[in-house]
């Protein structure tokens, strides 16, 4: 037991160190264009963490994490255009999606609808938001002095600034530090949550909801809180994404976006935090490569990857690699049980 805790701290320290090295090292390796690319990868990694947390640990199958992502992006854009200072806008971009997730989660979890219905309801809500934001063209749909712009989205959104100094915006190089810093913060937060009593109950509910309920925990409340936290993190990712391109459009709500988030987690590995981050970077990189060529439509490749992983590697890359490493480096007694790959299944 003590060994497990120690190795937990060791892996946490290693991850934190790696994150900090990347944060301060990459600007010396990449030029500005490369760094911008990495910034969007990191924004997607934050988004993947939100899905990885609620799905891999909370057992909640959300097909609409892009709803909170898009809401976060739009909230930031509208708020920063009206407030001038970006600090409050960022807070709103986290709080509003979280509040929306809480409302939706109350509806779903306190309605005790089954897992599959949660998937379909989140999917439906995403389609609703996509349709609504698509039809917001025209002067009528202007919040304060921020026109929503319908299908064309909102261009030239002001970037983040030094808190309290709206006249000192971050340049793209500095945005990288903000994005990577957010990713590290979210990772640390989720590690903390999972190590806490709350996180243990969340995982217990994923493993066996009835048993957790009989032990006196209310699964509805725990699922609601998990879902809300995930919504807030996805909102932060949307805020980073809007900052990256100074642009947000209804495609943030699209089903293709939702599918990508799920693929990030599935490819990287369910029930891990590292997996979604790596999955996001790898898939996003692949999508960028596909976008550069004209022969094959991107959806075809993304779809085939998704089918392939569901059928062949349903537990994702990180757990598989971890098991292989364990088998190589940790001696298991002969005839003893090998590490079980299916541990991370929801």
């Amino acid at each position, binding site marked *: 037991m003590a060994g497990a805790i120690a190795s937990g701290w060791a892996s946490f320290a290693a991850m934190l160190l790696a994150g900090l090295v990347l944060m301060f090292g990459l600007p010396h390796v990449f030029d500005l264009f490369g760094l911008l690319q990495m910034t969007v990868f990191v924004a997607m990694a934050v988004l993947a963490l939100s899905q990885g947390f609620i799905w891999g640990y909370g057992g909640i199958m959300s097909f609409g994490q892009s709803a909170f992502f898009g809401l976060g992006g739009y909230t930031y854009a509208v708020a920063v255009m009206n407030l001038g200072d970006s600090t409050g806008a960022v807070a709103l971009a986290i709080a509003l999606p979280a509040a929306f997730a809480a409302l939706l989660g109350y509806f779903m979890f306190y309605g005790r609808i089954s897992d599959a219905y949660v*998937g379909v309801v989140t*999917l*439906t809500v995403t389609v609703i938001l996509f*349709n*609504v934001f698509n039809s917001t063209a025209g002067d009528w749909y202007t919040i304060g002095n921020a026109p929503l712009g319908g299908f064309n989205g909102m261009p030239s959104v002001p970037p983040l600034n030094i808190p309290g100094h709206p006249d000192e915006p971050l340049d793209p190089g500095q945005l990288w530090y903000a994005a990577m810093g957010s990713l590290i913060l979210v990772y640390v937060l989720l590690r903390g949550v999972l190590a806490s009593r709350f996180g243990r109950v969340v995982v217990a509910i994923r493993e066996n909801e009835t048993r957790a309920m009989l032990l006196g925990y209310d699964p509805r409340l725990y699922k609601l809180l998990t879902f809300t936290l995930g919504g807030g993190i996805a909102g932060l990712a949307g805020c980073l994404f809007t900052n990256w391109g100074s642009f947000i459009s209804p495609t943030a709500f699209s089903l293709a976006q939702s599918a990508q988030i799920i693929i990030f987690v599935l490819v990287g590995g369910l029930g891990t935090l590292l997996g979604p981050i790596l999955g996001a970077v790898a898939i996003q990189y692949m999508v960028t490569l596909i976008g550069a060529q004209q022969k094959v439509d991107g959806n*075809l490749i993304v779809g085939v990857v998704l089918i*392939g992983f569901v059928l062949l590697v349903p537990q994702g890359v990180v757990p598989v690699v971890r098991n292989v490493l364990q088998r190589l480096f940790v001696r298991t007694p002969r005839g003893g049980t090998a590490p079980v790959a299916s541990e991370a299944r929801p």
Partner: protein
Amino acid sequence: MDLIGLTGFNILVAIATLVLLALGLGVIYGMMRIINLAHGEFLMLGAYATALATNHGVNIWISMLIVSPLVVGIFGLLVERLFIRFLYGRMIDTMLATWGLSLALIGLVTTLFGTTVQGVSAPLGGFAIGRYQGSLYGLFLVACAAAMLGGLYALLRTTRFGLIVRATMQNPNMAAALGVSPPRIYMATFALGSALTGLAGGLLAPVSGTAPNMGVAFVAKSFITVLGGGAAFVTGTGLASTLFGIIDEIATERTTPVFGEVALLLSAVILIRVLPQGITGRFFRRST
């Protein structure tokens, strides 16, 4: 009076459209508990089959009523054999795999045919509702939806095949003990659902147009109708389509088509909250 007539006609068409969209899905979900997220793309394939066949000189009625269900039915059979059958009992994985299939199909069709294809125009003309004009094709859609609902109900209720299918649905182990092969029934059911979906896609092609991503617009509507309908999926789909069709059409008339759809989806989410088992989970429980 004329306006009421027109509204009534539009409501009927909206209901019929929902029935067409949802029935194939209802068969697959209701019988096999498989959530086929590629449903929208099955509709799209049906529409493409009709459009391509018609553009190559096939009679439009033949392409809609025969080519589309045949093509998509066979396609569904292949999909079931190639990967759905490995995923029975793993609901979330099936959702993910079919979602992958959905994206792959959108990508494939875009790669093969580009983002647009020459559509088909609605055959038949119009008829007068007082001072207004209704489309005869809309009437034909209503007739088709009614025939499909009635036909499916009769198939499940009166034939030997229907009896076996319903028995397998209720208790696959018992059915297997009595000499039925559940995998073959599942295969047939999936193909039947796909064929119905293809037929719907073909029928809707003149109304909705044909584009690779047309299915995305339908998939949420279809699901919500099936889930709102509940376990007895033929009756349920009919009832839920009626309810949602009325809401959609009235909201559309008051505001815009976008908010009509939003009203439909919102009311469906609320319905699922109030009746988690769908309409037939509470009422008409003994129907099919």
